[in-house]
């Protein structure tokens, strides 16, 4: 009996995406990751007396693109607000964010979870600035503050509590990450914190309509941790309730070494953020023409690609999902797939051969280019070479960079389709192995494969396997 028979998990996500800009959201300081401490900080990020924020146009463009891709209603007039609290990595004593009027609201995203479509509501997306980083040296009585991150542009994508299983959460987050990476909105790097997830987790007994008390799990920086943390948290809450205790609303962190969540020490004694409209920034007004232009710039998103791969190219759902997950892979596949009728072969090669050697990050620079693959697939499909030989050709391409046709030509790898030549080899093999022929004829049909193998070996792999099969059938009958 599953835990889900009596309990329902309810999860909503708050995802912070770092926008892929060159400069910060309110200052011209660079956003490059990994710089020396406090080297990417200017007067504005430092919160010096007298400085004022200046909004980055590209950050707005990226936020609008995310809004459009997530089917949100854009607020053509949105307002920045100050969220006031004290923290050493928050230089001004307030974070500039959006509160009452975010850049967009009321969106949704559909994700497939084990062939079920799950519709996840997007409550809102708002723009805000990141804080700096405090590091706590173990043992030392002090902390150090680096403000390089302060002012890096973020969007926070807030979902409705529509997720009911950790697998749904992961599917949603993967799809979301895939989309923002497709759009060039965010580099999706979870290790560097470009894509961060907080999950609001609660449980209730099946059939209940009221939401349970939720805990916010913060700073989950891998899909595995997210899943493990939610599973742990779900069981923790259920145990509390079953033992007659109550879930206390709190922020919790996940310890991956111990596999447990634990309450975060409150960073503010009281959460009263005293939001009010940022007087230093006039309302952000989007012009329709600008939005339309950005809409035209939107690339085909993974869901559309998956559908097209299945419907137009006849790929399986699984293959389509693998190819569409990362834009560089999809781009590679589409560039290599010059003939739709050979899409399946191209897909197989990308998934099973290319992605074994390259990743989404490196495929764009992979030595076997889409042009190489297209030619290779053509050689296979026109029966110039066999699939097995093609794998050797791949190796030669990686060594030399030469085009596959040239390699096949110069190395004499062309498939032998001349039935006369193949028949001679078949005859030779049968003559050399009378005992095996006898066994086959006595009913041991599995030996057929052995004969094929021998013929292929004797032809150094160049014999057309179909022709070999046909001849063997003839001669063994």
């Amino acid at each position, binding site marked *: 009996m599953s835990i889900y028979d009596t309990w329902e998990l309810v999860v909503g996500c708050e995802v912070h995406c770092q926008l892929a800009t060159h400069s910060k959201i309110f200052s011209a300081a660079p956003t490059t990751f990994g710089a020396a401490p406090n080297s990417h900080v200017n007067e504005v990020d430092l919160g010096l*007396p*007298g400085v*004022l924020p200046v909004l980055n146009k590209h950050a707005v463009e990226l936020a609008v693109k995310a809004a459009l891709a997530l089917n949100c209603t854009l607020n053509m007039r949105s307002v920045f607000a100050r969220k*006031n609290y004290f923290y050493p990595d928050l230089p001004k004593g307030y974070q500039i964010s959006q509160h009452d009027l975010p850049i967009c609201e009321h969106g949704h995203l559909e994700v497939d979870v084990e062939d079920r479509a799950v519709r996840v509501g997007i409550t809102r997306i708002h723009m805000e600035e990141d804080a700096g980083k405090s590091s706590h040296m173990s043992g030392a009585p002090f902390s150090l503050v680096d403000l390089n991150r302060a002012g890096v542009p973020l969007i926070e994508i807030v979902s409705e509590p529509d997720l009911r299983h950790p697998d749904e959460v992961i599917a949603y987050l993967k799809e979301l990450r895939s989309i923002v990476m497709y759009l060039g909105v965010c580099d999706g790097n979870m290790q560097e914190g470009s894509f961060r997830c907080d999950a609001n987790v609660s449980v209730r007994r099946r059939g209940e309509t009221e939401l349970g008390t939720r805990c916010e799990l913060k700073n989950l920086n891998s899909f595995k941790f997210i899943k493990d943390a939610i599973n742990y948290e779900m069981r923790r809450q259920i145990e509390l309730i079953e033992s007659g205790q109550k879930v206390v609303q709190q922020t919790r962190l996940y310890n991956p070494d111990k596999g447990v969540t634990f309450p975060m020490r409150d960073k503010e004694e009281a959460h009263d953020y005293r939001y009010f409209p940022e*007087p230093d920034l*006039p309302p952000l007004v989007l012009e329709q023409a600008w939005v339309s232009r950005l809409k035209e710039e939107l690339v085909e998103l993974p869901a559309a690609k998956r559908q097209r791969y299945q419907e137009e190219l006849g790929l399986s759902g699984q293959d389509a999902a693998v190819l569409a997950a990362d834009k560089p892979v999809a781009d590679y596949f589409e560039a290599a797939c010059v003939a739709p009728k050979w899409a399946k072969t191209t897909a197989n090669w990308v998934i099973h051969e290319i992605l074994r050697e390259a990743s989404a990050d490196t495929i764009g620079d992979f030595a076997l280019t889409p042009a190489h693959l297209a030619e290779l697939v053509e050689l296979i499909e026109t029966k110039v070479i066999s699939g097995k030989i093609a794998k050797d050709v791949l190796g030669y391409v990686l060594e030399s960079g030469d085009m596959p046709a040239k390699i096949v030509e110069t190395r004499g790898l062309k498939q032998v389709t001349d039935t006369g030549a193949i028949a001679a080899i078949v005859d030779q093999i049968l003559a050399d192995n009378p005992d095996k022929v006898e066994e086959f004829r006595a009913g041991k049909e599995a030996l057929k494969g052995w004969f094929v193998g021998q013929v292929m070996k004797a032809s150094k792999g160049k014999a057309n396997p179909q022709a070999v099969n046909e001849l063997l059938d003839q001669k063994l009958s």
Partner: protein
Amino acid sequence: MSQETHTIRQLLDAYKAGTKSADIAAQYLDAIKEDTHGAFISVVDSDELLAQARGIDEARARGEDTGVLGGVPIAIKDNICVKGGPVSAGSKILDQADGRFISPYDATVVTKLKAAGALILGKTNLDEFAMGSSNENSAFGAVKNPADPERVPGGSSGGSAAAVAANLCVAALGSDTGGSIRQPAAFTGTVGLKPTYGRVSRFGLIAFASSLDQIGPMTRTVEDAALMLNVLAGPCPHDMTSMDVPSEDWTQSLGRGVEGLKIGVPKEYFGPGVEGLSPEVRASVQETLQRLESQGAQIQEVSLPHTKYAVATYYLLATAEASSNLARFDGVRYGHRAEARELQELYTKSRSEGFGPEVKRRIMLGTYVLSAGFYDAYYKKAQSVRTLITRDFENAFKAVDVILGPTTPNVAFRLGEKTNDPLQMYLEDIFTISCNLAGLPGISVPGPTSGLPIGIQILAPHFREDLVFQAASVIESGGRS
């Protein structure tokens, strides 16, 4: 004062006639050393200033353009940042024995003044974080009014006003959140202009209340104010609230006379209930109106019905914004840091030791106003009333070109006179506050008086500084156009 009193125009003419900027700079530096009014908090390195002045002299001798303010000595209110120099905002939190905040950048207005060839003399005293009306609320001591050293110069730009009045500089910059340029100008017999909100960049001005603050010139004449605004005005890439409206040569607005100019007088300012308005100020305003009328101006009554709510509205909005603007003074990155072993203690002790009592009180009020459950009742309500106050002016300006009244209900009061009776002190702000709430341009220009200086205030619609200058130049000349 030992040296000659100059206006910008006179000084520029003298330079053309051969006077050396270096000599003038040296004279002003000496005068500041001898100052007994407490007008300055800090002065620039004299060698550097003199070298700069000599550079201007040499350039001028070569026939080069030395800028529209080439060699003109200017003082800066000490809540405006000058690169490489200290900026205190009149507060211990930025400037005391254990640490002095040095600005690593120039305010936009300072960049513009430097580009125009101005000589920056130093930083003038002010009420802490510009919160006050007498300049007695400064961590660096009170400022004396040159018109009568027993009296306050007004605030919060009291140091700038005193420096101009005592000829310790030719012109100065002030900042005006609720009257902080115009009221001290009125008390010291100088000219103080608060430009339209957005006319002059706030980048580099330590914020008190962001939606009300505006930098402006404090000068000896209306013409000098116009010359200064010519330099200061314009949109700024570092200030999104600075407006992209065309600048003009405001000296062209001077001497046009007031023939046909419609001047509105708010009945609420002079109604029978206004006991706070002193007879001498009332008389000065009346005399001014008579003179203007005799010059062809049309005087008519207007109504600003929400005036009586301006003070409440102002204190809710200004303190709320200030509570947030002053959060950055936390002892972490700059400024005073108290001894503390724990972070919360560091914040609380640094701030409590660094801020003066009036600043703390305003932060407390502002924090309360914004806190959970009270936002709508106080902050949002005040923002809506602000809209109504702005509409009052819009309606009035349908009928008249400018609005005229007293800058303050009284002349300068005695030092210490109202620190124990602050009632009268706050009375001083009543005529100046609405202008900031509505974002209008306003000037205080000396009016007729037989005793202490009296300021006449002129308000105009957004970005109509030209009308302000036009009317003010007539008042300044005693009604002769």
